[in-house]
């Protein structure tokens, strides 16, 4: 092989790094096992959809309209309806945590319905100690109520019975299954861990074991040193990414509507920024323990909290929203969501790519600045 000395050094360092990856069970664990476990936990166990929520129904009205509405609620998969004899009995059960909400169909329900003014009213009591479920109970009863009325109106040949009609249609996630945004979110978190955690160890390890000193005494340049820390872990990260995508599409049944090329591009840029962050921490800390802690704090936690994965970014206070712009998981998450559900969308992936590129340049640039050719 006729290689330039520089290329030969780079290849030698990459080979060394790869041996270390392959021989260190923990990096294999982090790169190959963790994504799968994480995806399943996030995709199946954590489910923000409510199924079979136990609600009590108190029907004070014996009329036909009230009976039918109760049947509508009972038929819904969302609820497990428990009819009760009295308001107190049901409220007590709710206080015990037995029920998540109580729907009261008042005495004049059928009469008001018959009058046809759409003025019939329902009372929904929800257990506010679990706000998500409470909101779900309220919304779902409202939805059931509205669609039932529409059906009724159609049956009676009336149009626009309610004056203003609100119709909500969920696009891009038609069945409104939260898994469809949880999966892209958890892929972003997993990839952040792989990128930042693995590289956070690699420079610090050289310092701790005293090999950095020996490396620096050879003709190795700063660029070769940095590149040799990025390239193998980029490869490892890409393999993990492929595993994530395969599991998401073929095991969890996610659709994939975008192009592989765009996915490749976005992933590459994302890994650049995540690896850069980890390398920077490793370079500055020079201790594996500190660098790993810092990588968890600066990589994993923000990816979980500030990427829009668990909390909606648009509902965060303005200063926090500014911070989320510097969290690369945010861009991977949004790009993946569109790639899964919509397809290639220049405005999303293009925007994400620009930010990811900027973050990559920022972290790797900072690492290069902090990488010294000496021990001072």
């Amino acid at each position, binding site marked *: 092989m006729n290689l330039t*000395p520089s290329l*030969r*050094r780079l*290849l*030698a*360092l990459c*080979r*060394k790094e790869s*041996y*270390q990856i392959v*021989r*260190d069970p923990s990096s294999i664990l982090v790169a190959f096992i963790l994504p799968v476990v994480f995806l399943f936990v996030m995709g199946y166990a954590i489910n923000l959809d409510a199924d079979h929520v136990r609600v009590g129904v108190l029907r004070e009205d014996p009329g036909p309209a009230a009976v039918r509405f109760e049947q509508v609620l009972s038929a819904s998969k969302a609820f497990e309806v428990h009819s009760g004899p009295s308001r107190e009995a049901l409220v007590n059960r709710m206080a015990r945590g037995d029920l998540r909400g109580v729907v009261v169909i008042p005495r004049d329900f059928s009469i008001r319905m018959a009058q046809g003014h759409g003025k019939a009213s329902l009372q929904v009591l929800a257990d506010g100690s679990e706000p998500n479920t409470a909101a779900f109970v309220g919304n779902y009863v409202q939805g059931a109520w509205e669609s039932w009325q529409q059906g009724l109106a159609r049956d009676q040949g009336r149009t626009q019975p309610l004056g203003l009609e609100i119709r909500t249609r969920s696009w891009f996630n038609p069945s409104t299954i939260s898994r469809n945004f949880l999966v892209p979110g958890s892929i972003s978190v997993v990839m952040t861990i792989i990128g930042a955690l693995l590289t956070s160890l690699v420079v610090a390890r050289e310092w701790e*074991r*005293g*090999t950095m*000193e*020996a*490396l*620096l*005494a*050879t*003709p*190795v340049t700063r660029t070769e040193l940095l590149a040799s820390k990025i390239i193998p872990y980029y490869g490892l990260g890409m393999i993990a990414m492929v595993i994530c995508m395969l599991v998401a599409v073929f095991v969890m049944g996610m659709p994939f509507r975008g192009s592989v090329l765009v996915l490749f591009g976005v992933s590459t840029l994302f890994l650049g920024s995540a690896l850069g962050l980890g390398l920077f921490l490793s370079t500055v800390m020079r201790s594996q323990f500190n660098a790993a802690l810092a990588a968890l704090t600066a990589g994993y936690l923000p990816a979980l909290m500030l990427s829009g994965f668990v909390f909606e970014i648009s509902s965060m206070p303005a200063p926090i929203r500014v911070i989320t712009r510097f969290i690369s998981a945010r861009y991977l998450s949004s790009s993946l969501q569109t790639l899964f559900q919509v397809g290639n969308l220049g405005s999303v992936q293009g925007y994400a790519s620009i930010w990811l590129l900027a973050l990559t340049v920022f972290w790797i640039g900072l690492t290069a600045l902090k990488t010294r*050719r*000496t*021990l*001072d």
Partner: protein
Amino acid sequence: MNIPPSTGAALEVRGLVKTFAAGLPPALDHLTTSFHAGTITGLVGPDGAGKTTLLRTLAGLLQPTEGSVLVLDMNPFTQGDSLRDLIGYMPQKFGLYEDLSVLENLELYADLRNVTGEERERSFKQMLAFTDLARFTDRLAGKLSGGMKQKLGLACTLLGSPRILLLDEPGVGVDPISRRELWRMVRELASEGLTILWSTAYLDEAELCDDVRLMNEGNIIASGTPKELMDQMRGRCLHVANLKSQRREVLRKALHDPEVVDGVIQGSNVRLVIREVGRFPDLAAMEAGPDAVLVEVDPRLEDAFISRLGGIHGGDSALAAVTRPVELPASIDPEAVIEARGLTKRFGEFTATDHVSFKVSKGEIFGLLGPNGAGKSTTFKMKCGLLKPTEGQALVMGLDLKFSPSEARQRLGYMAQKFSLYLGLTVEQNLVFFSGIYGLDGQQQKGKIHELVEAFGLRPYLQTKTVDLALGFKQRLALACAVMHEPQILFLDEPTSGVDPVTRREFWTHINGLAQKGVTIMVTTHFMDEAEYCDRIALIYRGKRIAMGTPDDLKGMVVTPDCSNPTMEDAFIELVLRADRERETQVTQ
């Protein structure tokens, strides 16, 4: 010693200053010296003397704060790119990748140094033969013994045929046998014209160099060939032989003599260094006995080092002065204060300690000696209750450590290799903490801390954070913490690694003083001169006790016509090699 003709200075430093942080004393303090081509120069001094900083500056890894550095007439810091191919630098811990095999390590460094094609084939073959590692090319570097690691580290450094070799403490953690082999290799390289710098904390190791720089506190306190430096001491080194009385007591008294600047125990003799040739100390004042004679002996490099540092005075241990004589209960056999009975420890298939037995009597200093990985640390840890034996018994004052560990531990003090002090706490906080865990409180605690602070001169440092203490003071503090509860037995695990010889003398003054008060002491060590302080030594090799006796007994075992006056190191090496030969004959039979 035969020095190759000088071809001029290969390395030169002038007025070199290196400061790491404002407020700290400089690591190198206006250092000026030069090193000649084709020689092995020893940089000798205790930890913190500035050896590593000097080597790193020469390798271009540190920028000098002041002064100039020239390596082959180039500045290593600014012209590093042209110099890197010409310098081979082996850092401490050898710079090897433990999860790479021997061959992979060699390949990595060959690529990094651009050694390719035929040259690569040739140098690999040469290196593997040179280091005798050809059988182990597939073994991971992390699984090699200390000596093999060191040889591989040297091989990796030698790739690309450098003209200058900078070796940072290559002898640390390597047993005398491997060290001797390394010397043979380095000697061969020097004869090929390489300029070699070898840093070490062992003064006896430096005696083998062509040229020596004695370093202390960032400066060079003496330069010259070992012969020149030792010749300056000729006539000033004496043995007090044919002692009838306690040699520890003789040493203590001798150090009070104004003519004496240094003194150690050597086997059954006391070795003294005197201020001036011909002005002998007073044997009667030492109460050395009627037959005692003074015999002139060959000087050592250590004598030169200590005398440059002003020598040591007074053999009284302030610690021993505040220690009450140990009174053993009548039920305990004074011949067996510590006892090992068929002590065995297995880790899976591997037997670290294999049926080791010994008895240590009251007031005795008992040493465990052996190459790295031979099982002496395992034996030691079982003796102080830190490891449970697989088989056999570890008894301390008649108590089995397996059944009454805490009761036994209350009677023993333990000083660990790295001192196990809380570095983030102040000196006082450490003292209070350790006295607390040994159950001292109230006036008793205050009184004991006060006594020890005075005995060890720790008063000015009470509020200093332990991490900022000099190594010698850390060692004093560690000893203070270990004897807080006035233990009848003291365990010392390589207690003086890295400290300067003067501090080491002071430490042994305390240990001798404690032994005289009846404290029983067990010690592991790498220093052969430290082994000489022991009353008896057990030599541990491959988990077995291969020899036991007084230092003179062990030396006597290896006397041959060729070697009529063996040193402790000679005895060590010969006994280990003998054990190897016996094992081989057993295997072939």
